């Protein structure tokens, strides 16, 4: 039995050596592991799913689900088990699997639910959005980039949080410098940590009288990429407001109370206070 296992590993290693070189070129030459994102990860997930190792959604994010799938693949094909998709792993994967890049990317871009298992006709693996929920799908994938890859956020935040805060940032401060936009996002996140405010992002943003953009409807404008980048930076810890809980525009503020708050700094048109 042991001899058989040894031979099997030897056979697999031999197979890896004779795999056609052009298949490796399908991937980029980059070594990727947890934290990576983008086209290479989409291909990695699709190929792993083709072979049945990856069962989660193909989303272009190298998280733990992808990591375990890579490890399982490496174990089965006699490769060093490290969860890293390096040259050898990519070469083996490209040799044993198939990847229809155009089809996968088209599904991601359209926001369809799909899988990419080998041996099953592709048309049976896609659940297309109907006309009525197409708009919703587009809205839900609002934080995706052009190829449909979602944004990678710290685990405590969701795509919905990103979308909501980006709407607030864009509605409140789209004419402000980038620093000012990050600061507005940071104020919302600081409120989440403070006992003086509701304990959800939506509760904070939609608290009556809290944000002008909610009152005048500008919160419903589609945020641009810059506003989203600002929120991502704030979610990753940047706080140009220096722990502020409030901000106001001195030219337009009507509340007398806001002037009584201890001020910290001014960025663009906004004064930030605690």
């Amino acid at each position, binding site marked *: 039995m042991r001899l058989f296992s040894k031979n099997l590993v030897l056979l697999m290693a031999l197979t890896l050596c004779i795999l056609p070189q052009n298949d490796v070129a399908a991937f980029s030459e980059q070594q*990727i592991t947890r934290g990576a994102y983008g086209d290479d990860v989409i291909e990695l997930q699709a190929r792993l799913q083709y072979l049945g190792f990856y069962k989660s959604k193909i989303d272009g994010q190298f998280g733990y689900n992808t990591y375990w799938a890579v490890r399982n693949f490496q174990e089965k094909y006699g490769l060093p088990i490290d969860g890293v998709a390096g040259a050898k792993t990519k070469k083996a994967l490209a040799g044993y699997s198939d990847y229809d890049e155009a089809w996968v990317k088209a599904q991601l871009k359209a926001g369809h639910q799909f899988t990419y298992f080998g041996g099953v006709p592709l048309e049976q693996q896609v659940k297309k959005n109907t006309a009525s929920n197409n708009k919703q799908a587009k809205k839900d994938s609002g934080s995706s980039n052009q190829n449909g890859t979602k944004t990678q956020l710290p685990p405590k935040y969701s795509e919905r949080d990103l979308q909501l805060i980006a709407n607030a940032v864009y509605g409140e401060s789209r004419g402000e410098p980038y620093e000012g936009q990050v600061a507005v996002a940071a104020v919302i996140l600081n409120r989440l940590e403070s006992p003086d405010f*509701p304990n959800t992002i939506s509760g904070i943003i939609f608290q009556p009288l809290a944000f002008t953009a909610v009152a005048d409807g500008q919160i419903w404008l589609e945020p641009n990429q810059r506003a989203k980048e600002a929120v991502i930076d704030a979610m990753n810890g940047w706080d140009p407001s220096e722990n502020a809980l409030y901000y106001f525009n001195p030219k337009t503020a009507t509340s007398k109370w806001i002037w009584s708050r201890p001020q910290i700094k001014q960025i663009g048109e906004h004064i930030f206070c605690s």
Partner: protein
Amino acid sequence: MRTLLVILTLGVIGLGAYGINVHKDNQNLQRAVLAQYTDKLTDASEKLSHLQQSVSKSLLFRDEQAIHNELDSVWRLSSEVRSSLSNIPIGQEMSSEWLNYLGRLGDEAKNTAKSGDYQAWREKMPQVSNNLQSLSDEWTAATVDFYKHNGNMDVWLQQADDTKSNTTFTNVQKTLKGYGEKDFPLTLSESDWQKKIELKALQDAVITEKEALERVKTLFPVIQDATFTVAKSSDTAPYPFYHIQFHQGIRLGYVDITEKGGHILSYLVERPVDEAKLSQDEILAMAQEHLKKLDMKDVAFVESRENHQAWHVTFARKHPKDNALIYADGVQLKLAKDTGELLGVNAMEYVQEETIKPQVAKPIDWPTFFDQDVRVEEVKEIYTDNGQFEQRLCYEVIAFRDGDRPETFRVVIDAEHHNVLKVEYLT
């Protein structure tokens, strides 16, 4: 002339009909919103009274189960009143006072249920119960006018904006503030936490504006020829710092640097980023290089996240004695995907530096701690907040549960008492 008159008349009639329609729509909308506000107000007022009764009831029993039920009610009701109050337009200050008071009451109930320290609860709560009763009465009197709005939103908004003293509404606010400070004073841990975020521990010499600028140019040579605008933080800021904005070619950004000691709090550059050219390994190696240049040598890698323009890489300070990572002393770097240029540093937490009390780590038998289909993949020692502003030595476990859809969890367990502080679902 006659035709023109007919067209004009029809136009006026059309506009009038449209105007009436819009007005009707607005009225309907306002009524719907007012109905929601009134509902939430009524809900808050009723539950406030139930909350007071629950606090009183919790003082009736010596039986643990009976006390637990009431503590649970106090926690649930305080959370529900919070939610209702945060959905009515009552002005930021009043809202904050309410949410704070109710949140602290709920937390106290939750912590008592957890710790079993019923004696402290019994000593404190009779006064809180009395205060809640008078708050509830004052609140009822103050909000009577809200029910007389006759479909008019202005009543709400006038109340919210009214800063004149001695109205019943502003009296509630004052009472709340007084009770909040008396009933739930800051704990020692909270006070330490407050001092930490206000950088009270910084005792370094004050640097001048010029010195701050020189330091920025040394640490970030890429912007040494930029045009700078330096401003000092407001006098009322909890800690003084220099706010330095810069502009150099395609780069636009800022640096905040403390006045005491010239510690970098944060740095952020905005510039166009080209297509990614560097591998993940190269980016991480460059991040380590950037840290060395920033003189942050006591940190270790925690995690990295790639997005379409940049990588965010997180590091945390290593405890000098046991090498456990202190997550609260984190540093975040932002690196451009095209060249690996440092686009941002966030060192606020690193500058705040935690004071860690000595603690012991008692081993855990993982097969008996987790369910049988759970596999422990990785264990490391870390220091993290226990939710009560204390840094605890913990085991951070990456646990894996196999099945049709394999699942991964990050579990944080107090290394001494073995209570679970955090469970995160990882994808």
